[in-house]
């Protein structure tokens, strides 16, 4: 190797996973986790923008108080399709199936996931499930809300509930297969020297997510099967007219869907842990606390579900227990936030685009998490339950948190995935626009909810209009922030600067192989001899 005195212009490796093979078959029949990650990336990008269009239409409708743009039925369909699209076809697979799929095997130093065929199958299952959802959409949409509450879903509505439920059910198996693959890979495929205590925090986060995926998803599967059976054969499992219990549906639904929100945030936290340490040039603060807080969130996540049901007629004692347990989730979440902050303290912080997103995440996630505690408080929840306060809280965590982390991660690893850098100035602009647009969209919704505007309503009293106009204005800015990366990422594929193996001087096995990596990830099987995040050791290394 040449010394650092001469700047060597980085070159593309001659052979890598992108040019190893050409043609549509080499993509559709690939067993390479990196290519499957790209397939997922393209698919969920489509669903992100589709869900975004529904969101834009909702916001457009709410510009005026009297519901002038859409019929109330159409409006119900819009928010249902927005929720289903974004949750099941974007947020759940977002980081795990794309960045996780691409990076997890490389980060632990193996050639592929344990079951490459199941990994490819997972994508096909996802596409089939998505096909069902799209079929439900083009044949008229569904208006149950993304929660499929019975007996609304099982009896009263005449839309294609079964079609959409089956779509979500099928897509669920895609996430089970991803989770299964990750768990086995982390347990059985780590490179020599890659001990559990040296696993990157991104891997820990995805591991915790996988636990939720394999334990939670089967429960939503059986719940949706029962809904479909009840609807198709008119049997009474959840419909009180037929002897069923609609609250049982809510228990079963939230047993998955609450942990599922941790499926949607934990991988994002993993991304932030990687970015914050790299751009602070400092060893991560409290490695084992961050690692185990991921597992703690996964475990606590399974015992808090009834906080969605405080006003659904559950007993006051169980409500009390679920309220206390919900507060407990704040502990591991706060551990993460404090440790990221402590990592930055006295670090040499560099404000490149990924770091901008990471900083946005820390702030927005904190607001989103804290307002979650408002909702977990029994008395306060009665006032703000089912209002825009819930919508704002949820979007602060899911958009301000997960989408921000997803974009940050995409920028951070884009040079690794494509071998080329994205252009820095428009990327910084996009991060700024996203941050402003996001806050303008969702902060007014906290106030709206606190003042009593219910969610899912097609019309609202005129005194709420100013805040709604602000929110809609914010949404249009946010849209610009999301479209910009699409443009410059596409541009960089051809015109971006060659990145080189390690453009960020980051630690981690993924930066030791070429960009883009070869098909088998490493030319020589790696052996791990260093602790993770050895950023402090650089000066010592630089001497030689």
């Amino acid at each position, binding site marked *: 190797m040449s010394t650092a005195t001469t700047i060597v212009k980085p070159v593309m490796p001659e052979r890598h996973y992108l040019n190893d093979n050409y043609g549509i078959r080499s993509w559709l029949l690939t067993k390479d986790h990196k290519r499957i990650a790209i397939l997922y990336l393209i698919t969920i990008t489509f669903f992100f923008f589709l869900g975004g269009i529904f969101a834009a239409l909702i916001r457009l409708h709410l510009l005026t108080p009297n519901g002038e743009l859409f019929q109330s039925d159409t409006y119900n369909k819009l928010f249902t399709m927005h929720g289903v699209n974004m949750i099941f076809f974007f947020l759940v697979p977002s980081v795990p199936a794309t960045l996780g799929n691409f990076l997890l095997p490389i980060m632990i130093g193996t050639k592929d996931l344990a079951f490459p065929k199941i990994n490819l199958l997972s994508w096909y299952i996802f596409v089939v499930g998505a096909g069902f959802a799209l079929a439900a959409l083009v044949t008229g949409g569904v208006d149950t809300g993304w929660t499929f509450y019975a007996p609304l879903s099982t009896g009263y509505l005449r839309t294609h509930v079964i079609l959409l439920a089956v779509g979500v059910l099928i897509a669920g198996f895609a996430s089970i297969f991803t989770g299964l*693959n990750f768990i086995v890979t982390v*347990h059985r495929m780590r490179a020599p020297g890659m001990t559990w205590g040296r696993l990157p925090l991104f891997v820990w986060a995805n591991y915790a997510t996988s636990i939720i995926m394999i*334990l939670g998803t*089967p429960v939503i599967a059986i719940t949706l099967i*029962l809904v479909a059976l009840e609807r198709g054969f*008119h049997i009474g*499992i959840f419909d009180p007219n037929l*002897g069923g*219990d609609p609250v049982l549906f809510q228990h079963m639904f939230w047993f998955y869907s609450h942990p599922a929100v941790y499926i949607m945030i934990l991988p994002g936290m993993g991304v932030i842990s990687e970015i914050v340490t790299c751009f602070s040039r400092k060893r991560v603060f409290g490695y084992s606390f961050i690692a185990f807080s991921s597992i703690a969130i996964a475990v606590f996540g399974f015992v808090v579900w009834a906080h969605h049901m405080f006003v659904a007629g559950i007993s006051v004692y169980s409500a009390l227990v679920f309220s206390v347990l919900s507060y407990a989730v704040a502990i591991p979440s706060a551990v993460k936030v404090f440790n990221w902050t402590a990592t930055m303290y006295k670090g040499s912080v560099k404000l490149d685009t990924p770091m901008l997103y990471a900083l946005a995440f820390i702030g927005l996630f904190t607001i989103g998490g804290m307002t979650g505690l408002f909702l977990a408080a029994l008395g306060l929840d009665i006032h703000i339950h089912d209002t825009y306060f819930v919508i704002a809280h949820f979007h602060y965590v899911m958009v301000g948190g997960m989408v921000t982390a997803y974009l940050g991660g995409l920028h951070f690893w884009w040079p690794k995935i494509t071998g080329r850098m994205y252009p820095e100035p428009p990327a910084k602009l996009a991060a700024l626009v996203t941050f402003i647009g996001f806050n303008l969209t969702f902060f007014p919704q906290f106030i709206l909810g606190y003042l009593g505007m219910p969610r899912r309503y097609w019309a609202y009293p005129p005194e709420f209009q100013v805040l709604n106009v602000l929110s809609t204005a914010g949404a249009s800015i946010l849209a610009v922030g999301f479209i910009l990366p699409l443009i410059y990422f596409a541009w960089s594929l051809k015109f971006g600067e060659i990145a080189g193996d390690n453009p960020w001087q980051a630690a981690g096995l993924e930066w030791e192989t070429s960009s883009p990596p070869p098909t088998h990830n490493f030319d020589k099987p790696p052996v791990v001899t260093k602790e993770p995040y050895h950023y402090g050791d650089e000066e010592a290394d630089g001497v030689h």
Partner: protein
Amino acid sequence: MSTSQTTTDHHPALAHQFDSMEQQQNASTFGMWVFLLTEIMMFGGLFTAYLIYRIKFYPAFVAGSTSISVSWGFANTLVLIGSSFTMAMAVWAAQRGKRQMQVWFLIGTMVLGAAFLGVKAKEYTDKYQECHIPGHVIGKGFNTWGGCSASDNKLGNIADEIREKDPNIPEGAAKQTAHQTEIFFSFYFAMTGLHAFHMVIGMGLMTWLTLRASRGEFGPQYYTPMELGGLYWHFVDIVWIFLFPLLYLISRHHHGV
């Protein structure tokens, strides 16, 4: 290595992402257990819902349970336990590379599996004729007070059965309990149906394993697919071991309470 002397320890079934057959087998078996964990959660959701309704509508669950044939259910339990034995033997034969034996034990497993599904089909047909299929989509609609067939008024009359056991129960109450058995039968069909669906998938797996075993692919070096197929089959068997008492044996020991 440039020379091909070391290729003897590279088994043809070793996938590229693994370093050794041992690692491959470990990973595959571990993956199967994780998958079975998801299956437990899936059936677990159904079992939980069952238990809640069983507590809520206990008399109706007793009435529904007594109306289904415990002897057929018991026969099927024996059949499935037998199939688990033949499956275990097939795995044993695979570990020792006994080709003929694997094939015959797999065929035995499939025959027993088919017998189980046959009995299940017979039981479902009975329910159809008794009008005990919940909802009004399949058959003539759910009916438990003798309105089902014109020729035999007694067929499937659960209300009468309740009163035969305890004449003190008024007719109206007996009819109401009989009506509530619909939710029992909803679970009966959902649970046994999901189980039977797993059996059908298992039969497909057995066919595939028989094909591979007959080609002599399994031996002491490599029998992972056989072992995983076995794990799956035993799991489906164990689900039935729970289903049988939960559905067929509710309160058989003390009548009329």
